[in-house]
């Protein structure tokens, strides 16, 4: 989720979808991906989520999110292709290693599910700000404390990244040569982990103190007015929840009757 509204000029229809509907959309795609029991249907769900992600027109961010999961997907292909218990048809061999079709199919199915979740989440992340989400959730009846706990997860990671960047810059300034290989980068990360965690913890504590001083737990607090009108939000919620329930039902039937 974006930290702020800068350069968040959304097409009207994207802005008109409320944050909870976008979250439910992630749930719907996730359930669809898990209900799809074979590769072709999983690919159809994946394609739909990919189109949704493409509509945000932020390919750079999309690639960033996918790149993060590529390592995981490659590992899955390797492990499932070689060691999945249902393996029996050889697909291809590399050196003395034989990859099996069943394992590769299974890994591809899992990869489709992961990518579907990433693409649908990407739509939410690229079209909603933390503030908009917090505002909407509070207006939907959640207390600010609950909203804050939910939303704080969204900025703790960027804040830790920023702290890490500062620590690494300070290290460079003190003459520590930047690591060239991935392995030495990971090795260099260990000494900064403790100060990074301590600093982030300290910041979180300071912020919690500041929020209490600013009276966020005041019983008089009222939710901030919504900045925009959303298109039939309650209807969208019901529709998406109904679809999710249908998918859950289908999945249950598939489990029972298979």
């Amino acid at each position, binding site marked *: 989720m974006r930290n702020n509204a800068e350069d968040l000029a959304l097409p009207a229809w994207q802005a008109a979808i409320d944050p909870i509907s976008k979250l439910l959309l992630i749930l719907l795609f996730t359930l669809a991906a898990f209900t799809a029991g074979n590769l072709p249907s999983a690919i159809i769900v994946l394609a739909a989520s990919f189109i949704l992600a493409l509509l945000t027109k932020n390919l750079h961010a999309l690639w960033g999110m996918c790149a993060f999961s590529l390592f995981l997907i490659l590992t899955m292909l390797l492990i499932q292709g070689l060691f999945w218990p249902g393996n029996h048809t050889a697909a291809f061999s590399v050196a003395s290693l034989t990859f099996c079709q069943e394992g590769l199919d299974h890994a591809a199915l899992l990869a489709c599910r992961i990518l579907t979740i990433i693409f649908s989440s990407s739509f939410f992340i690229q079209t909603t700000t933390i503030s908009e989400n917090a505002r909407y959730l509070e207006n939907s009846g959640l207390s600010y404390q609950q909203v804050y706990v939910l939303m704080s997860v969204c900025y703790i990671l960027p804040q830790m990244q920023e702290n890490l960047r500062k620590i690494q810059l300070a290290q460079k300034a003190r003459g520590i040569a930047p690591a060239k290989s991935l392995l030495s980068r990971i090795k260099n990360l260990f000494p900064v982990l403790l100060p990074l965690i301590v600093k982030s913890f300290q910041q979180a504590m300071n912020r919690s*103190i*500041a929020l209490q001083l600013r009276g966020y737990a*005041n019983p008089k607090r009222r939710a901030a007015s919504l900045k925009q009108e959303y298109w039939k939000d309650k209807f969208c919620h019901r529709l998406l929840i109904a679809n999710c329930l249908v998918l859950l039902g289908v999945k249950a039937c598939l489990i029972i009757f298979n």
Partner: protein
Amino acid sequence: MSNNFQLTISQLSLRYLGFENLALENISAQSRGKRIGIIGPSHAGKSSLLALLAGIAGKMIPAKFSGSVRINGEELEAWRSQHEIALLLQDPASQLSGLADTVYDELAFSLLNQGKSDEEIESAVKRAADQLDLTNLLDQSPNQLSGGQTQRVAIATALVTEPDLLLLDDPTSQMDPLGRQHFFSWLEKLSCPFLLISNELDDLADLCDQIWVLKDGRLLMADSPQEIFRQLDDPAIDKPVAWKMAKKLKLKLDGRYPVNAHELKEAAENAN
């Protein structure tokens, strides 16, 4: 309220849980005037004193304290329940909610907590922004601000609720010289009483009615800036630039070295 401020501290000691040493040790002081500057080396207990007055130490941070604090004759706790105390933390970024898209939303946050209407919020935010030269930044994201700008926004978040007492913990540490100058000129116009921790000794000497000097959790002195810098002889605590210049130039005013630019100018004019 603003014209009648009396802070009385009697034998105040504070110890954070898990620490052997006292953060504040047997402090007794009485305010004179409504602008109090607090100086002292690191770990002197300056921030702890403000944390205790704001209700952080003992409530949000586990600590035990003894002694009494009274404001205008009322016990601190009772006074705090009726009045607004705003504290500005040393780290301005932590002062911000982190859930605001714009500086406007950030300032509005404190007012929403008080249940104010949109109209009241708008006028209060505009007033605070105007006071701190933030009007042009109201639509900007708090994440895009420089250190000095963030510090001004943090000050505005404390000021926007029109507190009865303002506690400022080194609020100019990240400001450039011009920003600092603006801040102190703004502070001069402020009607609300404040306790201000700062290393800007010249500005403190110019602005404050009284200066408290803390070291190792103890209050060494509490007096007017002129008396403080006349009597203070501790290598751990610096003196104002005006005082040091006057000493080098052997310029005295009423038998003592001037402590701020105005006094230095007057002393120089008298010498000529």
